[in-house]
């Protein structure tokens, strides 16, 4: 099959197909709308008969993330997917993975909350994803896809980052990106790592103690506070390296812009249309789209804001990323927020209206 073959599929299906092609060893998940196509597609494609990838429907999201903990702690590329209430249940496991430095991947196809909320799209798990989400001082690498193509591309990227830093990574998507169909070029097939490759690449993993080494132990436990503080300092240093190295973002039409919309994921796609409409009306607006939500592109947003008349943060929540934008810009330029809640997706003309009423007056 040619590498450049373009197909049409849902974002959720792109994740499933990309995983099989990226040499992923295992998927562990539990059905929840709007992401069930991921486990359904994997079950239909039977990768255990081709690449050897294992697919397990777990008894809960709690079990799913702990299966990922076990598999990834044993050096395998393992992931799970869920939507907001399910990802809330996974926070215990994600915290333990961060503490034990286990490199798994979690996909969150967000829906509206709080609680059982709605099955409609939302971006209201931004705080949870970017602040760690569970107990303790830790961070998860968070990638925010804004297209079906990025859903496919970020699977391999998330695994590479997770294993590079021995840290959990999250693909923070939402019901729009998960459910919409777009053209996509799937990644080329890559074989799963062999036992020898795992042993040489991940000598820390628990695949059975070989005679040439001490036992490997995956644990987040340490009762001595002095040792635990050292371990935390080591984690913080790692997070600083990630902040210095792994920031990803995209800009559009910012050079001549008077105003900049900062937006991620599906909200950024809607903002693109709003920017087009605003420019037709003579308002020069650009887009800044964080791709990594953690590490956040603090410096880059600060740079782009210089000389601008104002920033509008557009997100499908009650205003979460706007905090990070304000912290980045630190009062240099006016920063306003616009969003819709509870599963309602904003319309482009609403965004233009918000730009006018909040910033241009």
């Amino acid at each position: 099959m040619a590498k450049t073959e373009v197909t049409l599929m849902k974002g959720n299906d792109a994740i499933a197909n990309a995983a099989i092609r990226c040499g992923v060893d295992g998927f562990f998940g539990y059905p929840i709308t709007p992401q069930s196509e991921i486990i359904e597609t994997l079950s239909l494609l039977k990768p255990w008969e081709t690449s050897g990838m294992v697919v397990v429907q777990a008894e809960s999201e709690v079990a799913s993330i702990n299966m990922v903990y076990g598999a990834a702690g044993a050096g395998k590329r393992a992931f799970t997917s869920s939507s907001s209430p399910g990802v809330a249940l996974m926070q215990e496991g994600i915290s333990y993975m961060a503490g034990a430095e286990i490199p798994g991947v979690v996909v969150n196809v967000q829906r509206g909350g709080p609680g059982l909320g709605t099955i409609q799209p939302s971006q209201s798990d931004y705080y949870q994803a970017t602040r760690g989400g569970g107990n303790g001082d830790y961070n998860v690498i968070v990638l925010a896809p804004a297209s079906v193509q990025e859903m496919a591309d970020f699977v391999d990227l998330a695994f590479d980052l997770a294993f590079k830093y021995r840290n959990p990574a999250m693909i923070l998507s939402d019901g729009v990106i998960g459910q919409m169909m777009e053209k996509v070029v799937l990644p080329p097939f890559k074989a799963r790592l062999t036992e020898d490759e795992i042993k040489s690449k991940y000598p820390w993993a628990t695949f059975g103690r070989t005679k040439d080494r001490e036992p490997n132990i995956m644990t987040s436990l340490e009762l001595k506070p002095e040792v635990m503080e050292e371990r935390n300092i080591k984690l913080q240093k790692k997070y600083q390296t990630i902040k210095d190295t792994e920031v990803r973002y995209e800009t559009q039409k910012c050079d001549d812009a008077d105003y900049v919309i900062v937006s991620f994921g599906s909200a950024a796609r809607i903002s693109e249309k709003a920017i087009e409409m605003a420019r037709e009306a003579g308002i020069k607006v650009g887009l800044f789209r964080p791709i990594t939500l953690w590490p956040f592109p603090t410096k880059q947003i600060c740079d782009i804001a210089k000389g601008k008349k104002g920033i509008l943060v557009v997100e499908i929540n009650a205003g979460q990323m706007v905090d990070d934008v304000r912290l980045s810009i630190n009062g240099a330029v006016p920063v306003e927020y616009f969003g819709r809640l509870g599963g309602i997706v904003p319309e482009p003309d609403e965004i233009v209206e918000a730009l006018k009423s909040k910033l241009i007056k």
Partner: protein
Amino acid sequence: MENDIISPENLVYQKPTLMNDVPMHYCPGCSHGVVHKLVAEVIEEMGMEDKTVGVCPVGCAVFAYRYLDIDWQEAAHGRAPAVATGIKRLWPDRLVFTYQGDGDLACIGACETIHALNRGENIVIIFINNAIYGMTGGQMAPTTLMGQKTSTCPYGRVPELHGYPLKMTEIAATLEGTCYVTRQSVETVAAIRGAKKAIRKAFEASMEGKGSSLVEIVSTCNSGWKMSPKKANDWMQENMFKFYPKGDLKDTIK
């Protein structure tokens, strides 16, 4: 000289080589040390030292990884069977077992335990049942006997306040995915021999792909029970064995 008999050819017993030379944190009289030794002996006798991954619980055995010279993963409270599932599914030729107490397995991890066993994961669950929460200082467990006093049922367990003790091993025996479910103890030499045989049988079944095994070890917690080790053994024989009778509950290994 009496020391003449201490020579290699007269060796009849030694510490398993898989047991690390570190002081254990377990209380004197606790059953954990004996069960750890049995697990170490069985792994060694099967020649699986290089191919075994253990999963520790949260509870008294949280530090089991300090004592056995094998690869380990420390699971969150109750999640050991899910962690073991993840390891075993992706390393099917490895020996994967969990080592869990009654609070970890029968209370907070009841869901993970039942479903891992029912899926027939080729893992072994070693279940230490001492009818109390040892690590946190002696609170009521799901397996605490009726009338038994703990720090959270200081006047004795009564059904209207605390419900009834849970027989997880009996539940496990009803599940299609299990091939071997047994209840053992380690308070006498004969019992220790029986428990070791059961652990070996379960480990072998998991490597032969026959399904899940659960080996319950009815145990003492003399500190939590506030008894001397001797008295704790007597109390276990008189009270625990009545409610948790020893023997095989299911055996489909042929």
